[in-house]
């Protein structure tokens, strides 16, 4: 199955990005593909390079980047939602890129299934 995943909540504040991450890793392990993970609403905060969690906790931002390093997954942040929340090229973490909602809609059209993680 070829998936596109949407993440609609910020890291740590909400479990949605954890759930999305676990879904993604298990889907990839089982041989499925994920063409894009699109971050919208507060989900854009998953891509801030200024996140500095305590050392005994998971690092959600770096965990996404590592996933995209190991697999051909596009970590896409919505430009409009990002601008509202201070996510720009200057604050963007490695492994992510900023794009528009249009690319997300395109991937929904192209992928076999869209899965949304949110509140």
């Amino acid at each position, binding site marked *: 199955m070829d998936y596109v995943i*949407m993440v*609609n909540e910020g890291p740590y504040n909400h479990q949605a990005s954890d759930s999305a991450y676990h879904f993604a890793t298990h889907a990839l392990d089982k041989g499925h593909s994920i063409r894009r993970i699109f971050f*919208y*609403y507060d989900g854009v905060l998953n891509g801030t390079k200024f996140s500095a969690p305590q050392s005994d906790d998971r690092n959600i931002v770096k965990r996404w980047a590592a996933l995209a390093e190991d697999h051909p997954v596009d970590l896409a942040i919505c430009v*409009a*939602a990002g601008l509202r929340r201070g996510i720009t090229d200057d604050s963007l973490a490695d492994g992510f890129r900023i794009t*528009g*909602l*249009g690319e*997300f*809609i*395109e991937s*929904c*059209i*192209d992928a076999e299934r*869209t899965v*949304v993680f*949110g*509140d």
Partner: protein
Amino acid sequence: MTHPDDTPAEIVVKRFLYVNRKAPHGTIYALEELEMVLIAAMFEQDVHLAFLDDGVFQIKKNQKPAELALKDFSKTYGALEDYGVEKIYVEKESIEERGLTPDDFIIPTTVLRRDDMSALMESMDVVLTA
């Protein structure tokens, strides 16, 4: 030799449903979902909107969010028709629980019972909820 660029690509039209479940203000979900719908309308897709739970308040007439220094985007729902977005559904139980009727809404809507709303969702290719 073939020239793929000369051949018009077959357009895939999927059934998209945007599910609005949250009140218009208090959180940003309604506004950003609406922004997504406006972008999505530029693609030649079969777009549907559903309003349920407190989401039915998003299309209520006579909103005055300016009094709380909030952006009034409710009028934008009235422009959806210009974007070709005309398949708009509200859940019967949700509006009745809140003392609303279709006359309270800015835009024409189709009222669906909860069971029929489930069936509508089941018939979609892509369901985007907020």
